[in-house]
């Protein structure tokens, strides 16, 4: 019997993206540049996070025309973002044939209490998380891939690092707890008990875990890889820089050769200026996208 949209198939695509770079693009031309540079997938958007931040107002799912044009332009997987809790945007993206849906804090949340029940869909979902509890809640709802939230559109990697260290620290802590303490741990981190048991036993998340939110240089990508992520999302970092094609290619190489400082030194040379960065402390709490969702 043919089984479509199974958990193996949903999680499987994320496995194929590992060791790769997923790039935000807003036009078919940018999608081609990303593909040519070696991106393993693109995220089709109307605006990159830095511009969403600058524009303010309500950020929604991209116009289907843009998503379709980008799908026609490249052969690599095309992802798209839906607002947190907006299951109809997700239904539309699935109908369009998007390969992955990012239920994303970069867009303005549509529901302040509930995320999408991602088990309802054949298309797989990726969701952001700041810590292990949040990651396991999203997986419990059906996310087949997790990424750090970081702080999108800032070109500042500090929040992605904080979130990755938080997840890894909590994973290590669970591994060291005796079994009778795991239910209390599940209660404290508000995470499904069966997933807490899985993490305690295996020492890792049950799905692929990428870095996102503030990655702007090859060194940033390699840093996140050395901290233990499986791959990297780059949002504004590429097309807000001086030489997007060269930077994109260098970040791809850095994600593969993250453990080789010699190669990292070579590929980091002559890339032109990175995107302008934002110091996190200058953002008011309401400007921090990572606080969206729970």
């Amino acid at each position, binding site marked *: 019997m043919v*089984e479509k949209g199974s958990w193996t198939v949903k999680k499987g695509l994320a496995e194929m993206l590992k*060791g790769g770079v997923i790039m935000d693009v807003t036009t078919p031309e940018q999608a081609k540049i990303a593909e040519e540079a*070696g991106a*393993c997938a693109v995220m089709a958007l109307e605006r990159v996070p830095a511009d969403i931040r600058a524009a303010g107002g309500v950020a929604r799912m991209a116009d289907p025309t843009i998503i379709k044009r980008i799908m026609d332009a490249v052969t690599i997987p095309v992802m798209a973002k839906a607002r947190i809790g907006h299951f109809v945007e997700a239904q539309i993206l699935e109908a369009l044939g998007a*390969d992955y849906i990012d239920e994303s804090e970069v867009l303005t949340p549509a529901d302040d209490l509930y995320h999408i029940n991602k088990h309802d869909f054949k298309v797989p979902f990726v969701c952001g998380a700041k810590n292990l509890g949040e990651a396991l809640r999203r997986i419990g709802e059906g996310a087949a891939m997790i990424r750090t939230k970081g702080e999108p559109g800032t070109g500042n990697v500090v929040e992605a690092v904080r979130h990755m260290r938080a997840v890894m620290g909590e994973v290590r802590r669970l591994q060291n707890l005796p079994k009778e303490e795991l239910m209390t741990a599940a209660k404290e981190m508000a995470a499904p008990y069966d997933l807490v048991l899985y993490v305690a036993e295996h020492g890792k998340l049950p799905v692929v875990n990428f870095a996102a939110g503030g990655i702007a240089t090859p060194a940033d990508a390699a840093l996140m890889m050395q901290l233990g992520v499986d791959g990297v999302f780059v949002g504004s970092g590429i097309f807000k820089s001086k030489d997007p094609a060269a930077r994109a290619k260098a970040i791809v190489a850095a994600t593969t050769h993250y453990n080789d400082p010699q190669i990292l030194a070579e590929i980091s040379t002559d890339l032109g200026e990175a995107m302008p960065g934002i110091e996190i402390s200058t953002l008011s709490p309401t400007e921090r996208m990572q606080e969206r969702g729970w």
Partner: protein
Amino acid sequence: MKIGVLALQGAFREHRLMIESCGTEAVEVRKPASLDQVQGLIIPGGESTTIGKLMCDFGLDQAILQRAEAGMPIFGTCAGLIMLAKTVRGSNQFSLGLMDIEVERNAFGRQVDSFEFDLPVPVLGYKPFRAVFIRAPWIEKAAPNVGILAQYNEKIVFVRQGNFLASSFHPELTGDNRIHRYFLNMVKEAVN
């Protein structure tokens, strides 16, 4: 005996774990020098355009071709199958061109069309193989010197040509290591 797993991008960790589950040592290959210590190579699933570019940028294309000519067995899955093919339909992307096959990329459709299926694979015995197809290619044409090991709906999805083995689906994503053991036997025969 050591098996290399090309670790440029994609599901290389799963292949390494499968080889290790067969009791054989696996090495992640990112640079040409690592090829010297292996007797067989797996090219994993991932994005074929990404893997192809990284292969050429870091000199692995020539290094792999040299070893292949000298008889090293290679097993490619999904993107790895595309890398082994002589012709990729409607595309000018790089491939090693070691197998006389013509492949169609994303032939089964986009991710919403990805599927799993109990595939009969006669060389593995009576029990079908749980085959996971993810945005998978199929083999449109195979030369007479290519052995067809499995078909799905009359589409060729698993082939062998001499020391080269290739599948559209992902045997590294299921617990079943029969195809990895089949490949290890090919490597053993080539070494002796």
